[in-house]
Structure formats: C-alpha cells, structure tokens
C-alpha cells in the first residue's frame, strides 16, 4: 500500500470541521547540501526531536505555538522522559520514548561504534507550531546555534 498522503487528508479533515485551509510549508528552493566528510563511526551526532519530550523536573510544553525547547542531557534515565503534545497519539511514546526520541538506540549505536559519539545534549520541542515564521526566524536559529556550539558533525531530526 502506498504511503499515506497526509496533506490532502488533513486538508479534507479540517475542511469538514469548517476550518480555513491550512497553509502547508512548501519549499521552492532546493535544500542546501553538505556531504559527510568523515565516516559516521567518527562523527558526533546531535539529536533533535519535535515530539514534545521533556524530562521530569523540567517545565512541560504548552500547546499554543510554544517555540521553546528543552535541553535533554543524553545520559538521562529513560524512565524520566515524558511527552506533552496535542497532535499525535502519545500512548506508545509514553510507554517507550524511543519511538519518537531514540535515546537508548543511539547510546547503543555509540557503544557499538556505529556512530562516533552521541552529543552530550539532545534538543526537544513541541512541533505543533502553526507559525512557520516563528520556527524559521526564532526556534530553528536557536537550535542551530546550540548544535554548532556542541560541535556536532551530523544532526538527526525526529519529527512526529
């Protein structure tokens, strides 16, 4: 079976509810390109995830265009991880955060030498932000600056 076509399906769902048409982000420019310059086994990997993950003790996300992010230390205990998001079924993510925040998986791949190392910090936010402008002008540059400061070689982005 072909992949779900979410854009027309969500457009139809919203139309039935009487919402104005959702303005999907459509990039017209080709994306930038940076080839990997060394083997993955020598790379420091940064993890960025939009599933609303926070660690117990941190302030949770709110649901009205929250453009804040959380720093999750990658030695975090997996049992301390939580989710706060309004737009996906969090049941499985709350049973096992690795389905939207592959922290144990990446720690294992670092131990095994598949990746060089996992950066000390992962970054999380609540991706249900309906202002593309606020993501482009505010959240994304702050995350990019953090990843550059962490000197990561590659970044793995995990949306939901």
């Amino acid at each position: 079976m072909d992949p779900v076509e979410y854009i027309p399906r969500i457009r139809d769902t919203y139309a039935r509810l009487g919402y104005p048409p959702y303005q999907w982000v459509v990039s017209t420019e080709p994306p930038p390109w940076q080839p990997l310059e060394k083997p993955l086994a020598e790379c420091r990997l940064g993890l960025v995830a939009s599933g609303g993950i926070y660690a117990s003790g941190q302030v949770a996300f709110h649901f009205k265009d929250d453009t804040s992010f959380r720093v999750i230390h990658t030695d975090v205990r997996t049992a301390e991880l939580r989710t706060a998001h309004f737009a996906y079924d969090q049941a499985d993510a709350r049973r096992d955060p690795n389905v939207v925040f592959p922290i144990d998986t990446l720690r294992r791949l670092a131990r095994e030498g598949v990746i060089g190392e996992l950066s000390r910090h992962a970054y999380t936010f609540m991706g249900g932000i309906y202002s593309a402008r606020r993501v482009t002008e505010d959240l994304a540059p702050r995350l990019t600056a953090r990843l550059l400061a962490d000197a990561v070689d590659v970044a793995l982005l995990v949306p939901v």
Partner: protein
Amino acid sequence: MSSALDITAAVKPPRAAFLDYPLGHTTGKPHEPELQRAILVEALEAFTSLTGPGQVRHLPFRWSEDEAWKRSSMATDTRTARHGTPQYQTDEDRRRAAEAPPEACPACAGPR
C-alpha cells in the same frame, strides 16, 4: 527521519529517511529494541548513501501485513485542546518542575 512522505517532500530537507509507520512511531515500535536499532542503522545509512540534496531513503520496514492503519490515520481530528499552560504528563512532574530552582532549569530556553 520522516513518517509523512508528502509533507517531507514539501519541506525538502537536505536528506531524509522515510519509515512507513503510523505517526508517533518515527523511530520504531515500543519496547522492540532490536527493531529500533535496525531502523536507525538503515536510517543513518542516508548520511552516506544519498548523493544529492532532497533525496529520500525509503526504509525496508512495514508496520503490519495488512497496513489497515493507513485507512484511518488523520482521517478524523484527534487533536486535544491547545492549552496555553504547560501540560504535564503527571502531577508529580508538575510538582518537581515547580520545586526546581530556576538555575536548575537552563533548558527552559524559550518564552514561558
């Protein structure tokens, strides 16, 4: 990573790995660490196997034989209300966050 091929194609990230799973399972099924590992190993291959901007690596995994989930996914509005205050998973989290001194929360990097 991507679970939504058409949305990813519209956004055009430099490179992507598409896992044809229901939303909320971008990197695997719960409590299946061997599967989660296999998925990420395949996905990370995209860093070396893709040769130009905008390409997508399709990962060789299926959620289920019949893929019945595809008929209902996002066909109705299942979102919860968009509350403007922090939405804690547990009351214990709310208490712990309230007790944490501000400097213990450098992670709160955005407007509160």
